[in-house]
C-alpha cells in the first residue's frame, strides 16, 4: 500500500542536486552509475520510517545501489522519481521495473539532446567567439558557461519533474524539447558552424592566402575523412591522429 510521500525540504533537494553532480564519478562496468544513484538519493531516504540507518533506509539504499545506466544528466529524473517512490512505500516490484525500464529511454533522450546536439552547438558557439576575436580565456569561458547553463538546467528540471511525477514520469519526456529539440539544436548548430568556421579560419590564417588555403584544405580533408569513416572508426582515434598531425605541423612550421 502506498502512502503520501513526505515533503522534500529545499535543503534536501539541494543536497540531492549537489550529489547528482558527482554521478559520473561512480561509473564502473558492474553497476554503471548505480552507486551514484544511491549516493544522490540518500538524503531523501533519511525521511523513511526509522530514519537514517533504519531497516527501511538500509533496504532502499541497497536497492538503489544496484545496476543503473542512463544519461548522467537525465538520471536526475530517475532520482527524483525513485525518491518519491521509495518515500511513498511504492510496491517494490514496480520500483524494480521502473529502474530497469528507465535506463534506456533516459539514456536515449539524453544522448540525443546533450552529446549529439547541445555539446556540438556549445563548441561551435565557442568557435564563433574565437572567430569574432575574443581572447582564449573568453572562448573557454563562453564554452563552459553555455554548456553548464544547459546541463545544470537539465538536472534541476529532471529532479523536480521526477519528484513531482514519481514513476508516472514518462509524459514529461514527451515535451517538444526532447522530441524535436535535438533536431532543432542540430540545425542551429549547422547555422552557427557555417558562420563560425570562415571567421575562425580567417582569424587563424590572418591575411595570408596561403594560410587560408592550408588550414582550409586540412579542415576540408578532415571533414571528408570523418564523413567517409563515420560509423567505422572510433572518434578518439581520429582525434588522436589529428592532434599528432597538428603537433608535427606546428613544430615543422615554427
Amino acid at each position, binding site marked *: 500500500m502506498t502512502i503520501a510521500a513526505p515533503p522534500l525540504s529545499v535543503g534536501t533537494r539541494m543536497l540531492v542536486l549537489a550529489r547528482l553532480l558527482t554521478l559520473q564519478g561512480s561509473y564502473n562496468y558492474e553497476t554503471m552509475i548505480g552507486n551514484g544513484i544511491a549516493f544522490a538519493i540518500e538524503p531523501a531516504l533519511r525521511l523513511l520510517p526509522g530514519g537514517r540507518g533504519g531497516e527501511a533506509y538500509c533496504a532502499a539504499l541497497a536497492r538503489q545501489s544496484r545496476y543503473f545506466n542512463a544519461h548522467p544528466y537525465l538520471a536526475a529524473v530517475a532520482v527524483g522519481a525513485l525518491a518519491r517512490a521509495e518515500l511513498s512505500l511504492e510496491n517494490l516490484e514496480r520500483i524494480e521495473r521502473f529502474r*530497469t525500464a528507465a*535506463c534506456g529511454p533516459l539514456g536515449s533522450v539524453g544522448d540525443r539532446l546533450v552529446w549529439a546536439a547541445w555539446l556540438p552547438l556549445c563548441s561551435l558557439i565557442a568557435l564563433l567567439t574565437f572567430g569574432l576575436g575574443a581572447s582564449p580565456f573568453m572562448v573557454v569561458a563562453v564554452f563552459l558557461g553555455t554548456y553548464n547553463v544547459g546541463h545544470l538546467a537539465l538536472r534541476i528540471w529532471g529532479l523536480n519533474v521526477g519528484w513531482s511525477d514519481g514513476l508516472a514520469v514518462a509524459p514529461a*519526456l514527451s515535451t517538444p524539447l526532447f522530441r524535436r529539440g535535438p533536431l532543432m539544436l542540430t540545425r542551429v548548430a549547422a547555422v552557427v558552424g557555417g558562420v563560425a568556421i570562415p571567421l575562425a579560419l580567417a582569424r587563424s590564417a590572418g591575411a595570408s592566402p596561403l594560410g587560408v588555403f592550408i588550414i582550409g584544405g586540412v579542415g576540408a580533408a578532415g571533414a571528408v575523412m570523418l564523413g567517409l569513416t563515420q560509423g567505422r572508426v572510433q572518434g578518439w582515434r581520429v582525434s588522436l591522429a589529428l592532434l599528432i598531425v597538428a603537433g608535427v605541423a606546428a613544430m615543422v612550421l615554427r
Partner: protein
Amino acid sequence: MPIECFRVDDRLVHGQVVVGWGQSLRLGFIVLVDDTVAANDWECELYSMGTPPEMTLFVETTDSVVLRLPEFDARADAGMLLTADIPTMGRLVQSAPRIRAVNIGGVHHRIGRTWRLPYVFLSPEDDAALAAIASCGVRVTAQDLPGADEVPLEALLSGGPA
C-alpha cells in the same frame, strides 16, 4: 528492406541504439521484443518517449513478433530488433530461421554473471544459450557500437578477448 540487426541489449532502446546504430544504419524503425514490456502500458510509453520521432517503435511479444517478421522485413526503411536477454533471442532464432546473425550489444552485471567484455557479463546459462543459438548456424558476435571491433562468440565463451 529486411531488419538489419538482431541485437541483445538489456537496456533495449537507449543512446547507443538510437544515436550510434540509428545513424549508422539509418534506422527507420525498432522492434522491441519483451513480454513484460508489452504487457505494461506505462513501460511501452516510457520506451516510446526514448525513441526519436523520426523512428517508429513496435513493442511485440515473443509470439507476436514471429507472425509480424515478414511485415517488418517488407518495410521500405531499415530496422533493428531488440531483446533484453539471450533466451528470448534464442526462442526467436528457433521460430524464425531467417535470422542469420545476432549482435550482443549489452548484457550487464548481475549475481552469477562473470566479466567477458566491459558491456558483456555472462552466466553459464547464458553461455549455453549462446552456444545453442550458434548451433543453428547463426553468426553471434559482440559489438556495442558500429565503430567498435566485433568480438567473435569463441572469444566471449573463452572468457573474453585476450
